């Protein structure tokens, strides 16, 4: 459990807030409800309640933190530099209260025992396999919010070819793309690849293509054994000890790769957790887009599509990675990059948050889907599996059609597809 902040230190941090309210419009729970109890400025007021030694605070305050998605858009917006990571403490108290049943909660999309087990790969894999069988509104909602991406390369290529209308012949293909010399890449940069839970269980093909792309961009890539979930979900569901254990296990798994330069993470949510979780020696933890932007990509062929980039909060606000994904997309010839209105607003995924708050998540998702549709884009790309699932189901709920892909899959297509 995060330590109870020292009241004097906290007081100083809280005093940085000038209550200007510039954070309100960047907060998805405020934007969707208009209720300032569910706003960052409001939550700062409630932080003080939580500090009172008498107990764990007013249920209203806990509920407010429970509903905080943790997207950190407020931190980007704040001119006074309030560290909104402060909310983690409130969110942990809320998660504990939720487990104890000490707080009124929304009717969750799936039972909480299951939510707490979604970081187990067999569970995810089973859910993925059962997806087509999902019956009843709750299961359907769970199933539709699980991320997925085209399983085989040909399917991905077909999808994009179809969007483009006709296949664009452009840059030359690397002749030897599957030859043995590229099995681990030859490059100067040694990468240890972090797969996360969804990678192997639900989106294995995307991970494989990403590794392929990194290798063709001149990196030597290894996938350390013994790695596990990043621990974010354990934190969100009030299991701090499990989270610590996962951090330690990953630390050990990656320590073996003593000669690696970068640890590259595919999902933005995992990246945030890993970047914050501590020591990986001299290796830098990088999001996949950061890594790709620093490498020499193979020649890219034109992709004449209007593509909307949905910035995953954990990348944009959490990790502060703003430039690299956009830069990658701009490198693809003929691609027109657009962004939705209110780009800073979260899509409402937030890992398992959307399962715990299905109604609010659905409303927030609809707003995001409308904004994305409003761009007139033919394709949406993003960097977090959670966002992928959430936006897919929101677009479907609107009865619209707008394909959504992992950003790395689009780059793979331009480079190697």
């Amino acid at each position, binding site marked *: 459990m995060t330590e109870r902040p020292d009241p004097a230190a906290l007081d100083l941090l809280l005093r940085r807030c*000038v209550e*200007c309210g510039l*954070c309100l419009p960047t907060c998805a729970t405020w934007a969707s409800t208009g209720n300032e109890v569910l706003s960052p400025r409001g939550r700062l*007021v409630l932080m003080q309640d939580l500090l009172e030694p008498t107990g764990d605070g*007013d249920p209203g305050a806990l509920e407010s933190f429970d509903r905080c998605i943790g997207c950190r858009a407020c931190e980007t917006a704040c001119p*006074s530099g309030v560290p909104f990571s402060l909310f983690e403490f409130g969110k942990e108290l809320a998660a504990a209260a939720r487990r104890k049943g000490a707080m009124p909660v929304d009717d969750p999309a799936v039972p909480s025992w299951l939510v707490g087990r979604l970081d187990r790969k067999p569970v995810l894999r089973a859910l993925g396999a059962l997806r087509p069988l999902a019956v009843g509104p709750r299961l359907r909602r769970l199933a539709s919010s699980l991320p997925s991406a085209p399983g085989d390369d040909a399917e991905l290529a077909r999808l994009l070819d179809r969007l483009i209308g006709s296949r664009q012949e452009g840059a030359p293909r690397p002749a030897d793309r599957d030859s043995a010399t590229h099995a681990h890449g030859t490059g100067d940069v040694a990468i240890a690849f972090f797969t996360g839970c969804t990678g192997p269980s639900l989106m294995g093909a995307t991970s494989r293509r990403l590794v392929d792309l990194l290798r063709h961009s001149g990196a030597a890539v290894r996938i350390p054994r013994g790695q596990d979930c990043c621990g974010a979900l354990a934190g969100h569901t009030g299991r701090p000890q499990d989270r610590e254990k996962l951090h330690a296990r990953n630390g050990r798994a990656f320590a073996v790769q003593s000669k690696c330069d970068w640890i590259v993470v595919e999902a933005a949510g995992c990246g945030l957790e890993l970047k914050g979780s501590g020591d990986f020696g001299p290796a830098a933890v990088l999001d996949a887009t950061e890594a790709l932007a620093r490498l020499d990509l193979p020649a890219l062929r034109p992709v004449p599509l209007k593509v909307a980039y949905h910035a995953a909060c954990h990348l944009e606000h959490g990790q502060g990675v703003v430039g690299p994904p956009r830069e990658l997309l701009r490198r693809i010839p003929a691609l027109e990059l657009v962004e939705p209105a209110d780009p800073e607003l979260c899509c409402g995924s937030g890992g398992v948050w959307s399962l715990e708050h299905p109604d609010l998540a659905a409303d927030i998702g609809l707003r995001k889907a409308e904004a994305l549709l409003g761009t007139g884009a033919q394709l949406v790309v993003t960097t977090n599996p959670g966002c992928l699932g959430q936006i897919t189901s929101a677009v479907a709920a609107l009865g619209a059609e707008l394909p959504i892909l992992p950003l790395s899959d689009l780059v793979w297509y331009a480079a190697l597809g």
Partner: protein
Amino acid sequence: MDTLDDLLEKLRGVLGTDGLLTGRAAGRIYARDASHMRLGAPLAVALPQNADEVAQVLCLCAGAAVPVVCRGTGTGLSGGALPPDGALVLSMARLDELGPVDSHSRTVFAGAGVLNARVTTHGHGAGLAFAPDPSSQHASTIGGNIAENAGGPHCLRHGVTRGHLRRLWWCDAAGESWVSGRGLACERGLDLVSLLCGSEGTLGVVTGADLALVPSGAAVQTLFAVFPDLGDAVQAVVGMAGSGLLPVAMEIVDRTMLLAVEEAFAFGFPTDVEAAMIVEFSGGAEEVAADAATAEKILLAGGASEVVLAADEDERRDLWRCRKKAFGAVGRLAPNYVTMDVVVPVGNLPRLVRDIQSIKEQYAVGLATAFHAGDGNLHPGVHFDDRDPEQTRRAHAAADAIIQRALDLDGSVTGEHGVGIEKLPVVSRMLDGVTAQLQEGIKGAFDPRGLLNPGKKLPARGTDYPEPKPAPSGLRVDWESLTVTTPANRPLAEVQAALMERALWIPVGAWLPRKEGNPGLARAGRIGEMVEQLLPCPGLGAWGTARDMILELWAETGDGRPFHAGAPVLKNVAGYSLPQALCGSGEVFVRTVAATFQVRPIPPAVGVWVCRPGAIPVGPSALGHLLDAVRSYRGAFPGAVVWYETDGENLRGDCVVMVPGRDTAWDLAVLNGRIRAAIAEAGCDCAHHEVTGFRESVERLEELGLQPDWAVSSATWTTLTALPGDRGHVIPGTSRGILYQLNPQVWWVPEAAASDSPWYADVVWENGRATPPAPPAAGVPLPLLEGIKRAFDPHGNLMTPQWLRS
């Protein structure tokens, strides 16, 4: 009477459980706003979804005698949204409907809860923007902007929120719903829109508004200048005001402010300077480039050490983000601060800045200032740590000294942040006893039981007030601050002639003195009439009506009590906006004694096109083509004029288009191509085109056989409620028309329009005399007008229209 529990139960019935917050968390959060002040704890927070629910909530609260405090997003800086103990907070956040942009009339409907910046984003596709852009624009609501009469950097050119409201939907304290404004920029009668705007939620609850949009400039150039001396920077602003250039914005931040912003966002701005200034121009591409070049010279000559032009849209956006994030970044400087909102005539700005510097030293306090410099409005923030009582005392004393200094320099205690509770102790220094009584009378007429936002805006009864400011005996021009103060009995022609000496005028569209003793002007054009009747004249180059230009008013009530309201400054929200509200109200409420107006440069050049129908008769659509060409033009000066004559169906004779511009070389040349194309498209010939001076253009008209005299001496004038628009451009029943491009909705026709015309509104001028104001349209609360009439003219000594005799 209901118990509070009954009330809450009924409110829940209207709003649903999700729409009524009664918990401790909500109570704590909604007891605060950006002012950092505290007042009391609310009974509950209501989150209505629509105007109908707002009305029901108000009605229920009135029934239980529970006070109501309206709230947008609580970004207000004077504590306006703070509830006293036991009041209901009425949050407008969920009224976020944004209607389609009407690019023809350049208006859009916005619910009170719509965030300001969203309106501009929404208009972007149509090339339109909502001009008032407070630094809080991403977070503050339209309702809050209206209630505070918010300003912003771009209000230098376009004016504050009030001038951008075409229609207001609002509820009174009893929960009755009303609509004020008929969609016009100029409408006679006591202007309720002017009263509601800036009333801080004490008179009515605004649920939505038709907002006027301005064309975003075809080209924009933004200069960033740094100064080793703050005094020089401020002096340069005065220089710029007197140069005839028309920047859309002129902002300054001082060194301390700049450091805080740099720390927050690392824009890479220099931090070893005393002041940084942003100057922006917007309009035709070449005109803007030339203006920016001239401005750069003025700034360098004025002591700027460096002037750079924003290279692209990204750089420009960074400059504005720096300015707009400045206020929020003060949290980095000290745990507490008092922010002021003083405003002085621009010419007095250098003196105020010098005095603030000595006050800072005298009281040994930390201070950072952001300026809406072009408006003379500045926000000095005194920093302190409230854990140190001595420091706290000194900070408040320094703030009081700064405010008093601004008042001594003919300024106001608040330009845009409002009185709220914060400025109650000082606002009384700006009112005299009669004005204060009249303000209370207005409050009483709107909200007799005092349930709307009690204890805000107006000083408590029994406060001591200074003597009224003496009325001026003669004409006084402040050439540095660009204002003119004049007794009401002076002919407008005389005032304009004095201003003309330095190429300035009151840009209200009243025609210029052409010959000695112009009979029309001599008879009709006294300043008093201009104020009382919104004197209608064709207005080449006009920026609005007298209501848009008036800053200060001396008048007498019906029973002869003299009073003074307003201040000779460009922004002022201390008290209700009496000068603007009374402007155009006829002689029904007060007798005008004197007034101060802002003045602006005359357009240096005028393009004239004479268009002649071809052999075949041309229908109304010909005119439509011309109007569209004029309307699409986004030059530096508004106020194009189009003359036409029709035989009721087809255009007859020549049509004349006149458009003011900065110079012969660029913007008018661009327009020339467009107008000629439109003329050709309309099946007409361009018989004549020239670019001439402003005065000469009047004579040209006469040579063309068009008598500008009929502008003022014609028998009858009609103001129309709407531009005919797509239905064809000829107004039924009339044979001559004039279009003011100032605002696409302002039309005056010099004869009576057929009263069955859908656009007919108000005959304002008959046989050289103003007619009494027409009865208010349905939807205007008559008892309210009667109440205000009683406050101003208790014995009915002044003109009382039939409809006001109850």
